[in-house]
């Protein structure tokens, strides 16, 4: 076996040129976006969907352009992002720690299972009055709502991830007497990581949804509050412009996670394969 440097001796690639794969994936997202944009432009214009209830994309974009000059939009965006980020970080950290702990200790799992299943489906929205009473109408309430909703998403994913450990890898760690921490860090965590990533991506959008909903209902300043005002004024185009901002935020967040995933999961079959050996 020999590891070669960049230049390979021997003959040049023969007739059937290797498939050009690298270029395509870069275009793919654009194609998807363009198709979706066309649909968003054309469908409202056909009148398939009643009247001006759903404005065409172009007018939404124009409206967005107008608002982009307004500091209020950016300030609101900043607040929303802050609530989102704080809530998400707390939810993820709490979910991962609790998930690993519960996943590792079978008794803990048996004891908590029923309570977890009971609490999980309780909607944050139903808790809003109680949350306002305790945490006020500010930023903290938004964070609490996000943590409550996001925590369960991460927890469930981590539990399934911890369960996915390869028995042989687990035995290897045990036989070399890895400490509990060593096992968590070197065996359990990497195994669960793909599950955790999915959990974080789920929680990230749920957190965004709740940041917006919280602002919408409670009136904490942010994008959601702007949406609420637009909604109750019947300013449909304006509302969709704000909704567009929300969606774009979601796309950006996901792109970030995809990069992180590629960096952290380079060893994983899913990432390896898309890197394109075959």
């Amino acid at each position: 076996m020999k590891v070669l440097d960049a230049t390979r001796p021997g003959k040049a690639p023969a007739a059937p040129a290797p498939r050009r794969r690298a270029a395509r994936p870069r275009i793919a997202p654009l194609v998807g976006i363009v198709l979706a944009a066309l649909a968003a432009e054309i469908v409202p214009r056909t009148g398939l969907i009643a009247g001006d209830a759903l404005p065409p994309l172009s007018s939404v974009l124009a409206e967005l352009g107008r608002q982009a000059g307004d500091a209020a939009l950016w300030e609101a965006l900043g607040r929303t992002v802050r609530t989102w980020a704080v809530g998400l970080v707390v939810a993820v950290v709490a979910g991962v720690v609790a998930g690993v702990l519960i996943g590792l200790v079978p008794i803990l799992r048996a004891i908590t299972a029923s309570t977890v299943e009971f609490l999980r489906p309780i909607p944050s929205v139903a808790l809003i009055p109680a949350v306002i009473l305790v945490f006020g109408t500010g930023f903290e309430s938004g964070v609490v709502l996000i943590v409550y909703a996001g925590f369960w998403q991460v927890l469930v994913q981590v539990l399934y991830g911890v369960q996915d450990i390869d028995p042989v890898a687990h035995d290897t760690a045990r036989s070399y007497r890895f400490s509990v921490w060593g096992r968590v860090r070197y065996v359990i965590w990497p195994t669960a990581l793909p599950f955790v990533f999915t959990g974080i991506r789920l929680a990230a959008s749920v957190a965004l949804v709740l940041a917006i909903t919280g602002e919408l209902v409670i009136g904490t300043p942010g994008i959601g509050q702007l949406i609420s005002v637009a909604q109750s004024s019947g300013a449909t185009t304006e509302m969709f412009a704000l909704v567009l901002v929300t969606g774009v935020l979601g796309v950006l967040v996901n792109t970030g996670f995809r990069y992180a995933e590629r960096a952290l999961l380079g060893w994983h079959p899913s990432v390896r394969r898309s890197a394109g050996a075959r």
Partner: protein
Amino acid sequence: MTDMVSVKGLNKVYESAGRRVEAIGDITFSVARGEFACIVGPSGAGKTTLLKCLAGLLTPTAGEVLLDGVPVTGPPPGMAVVFQEYGRSLFPWKTVRQNIDLPLRQKKLPRAERDRLVTDSLGAVGLADAGDAYPWQLSGGMQQRVAIARAVAYEPQVLLMDEPFAAVDAQTRADLEDLVRSLWRSLGITTLFVTHDIDEAVYLGERVLVLSASPTCVLDDVPIGLPAERDQVTSRSTSAFAELRTRVHRGIQDAKAGRRTSGAAA
């Protein structure tokens, strides 16, 4: 005899995660229809890589692979492969019987026929009563035998086996060797067989290809002139056998030492 498998100027470079490995330098050889060829070579020589290229699972970096005169672009029909990673090639969600049955269903064989093939092949590898177990309930050697049974039951035209007996005991190994040879003789399956056991290579094959260390080339191509009727005790004790074994062994030593041509080559 026509060429069933023919490999021309095959070259394969792995490029992943900042590592570039030229697994196969330049390999050219061909195997006739119905021939039994064994492949030996040092660990990491690129034997598995070669088999995967033959099976259409890997696209060569350069060169080409022809199967029955047709360039291989994807897995061709009528081919069975026993993977070196036998454990991972069995479906853990299927019982042993179901694992063997699945490829047969793809061949659209009638149910009775499939049942017979599954039962026969399980019996042949000595696992008649493990049919309803899941693969993960079996020992390593048993799993490997399930993978062999699956290939055997498939009745392929071309059979590629990657160290298929690595995990079984000496006695079972001898039985399986005889099983593969008798199958080959009765069905005329073109067989490529990767092994580390020199005796096994000589005993089984009509021909032994010795690969060099990577970047790999064919170091030696040893025709095995032993009679077709072979027997574990008598065949192995002939002087012809001993000579062949010595030649292949020298080839491997050359390969390990990094030589690119074998002193033993014709």
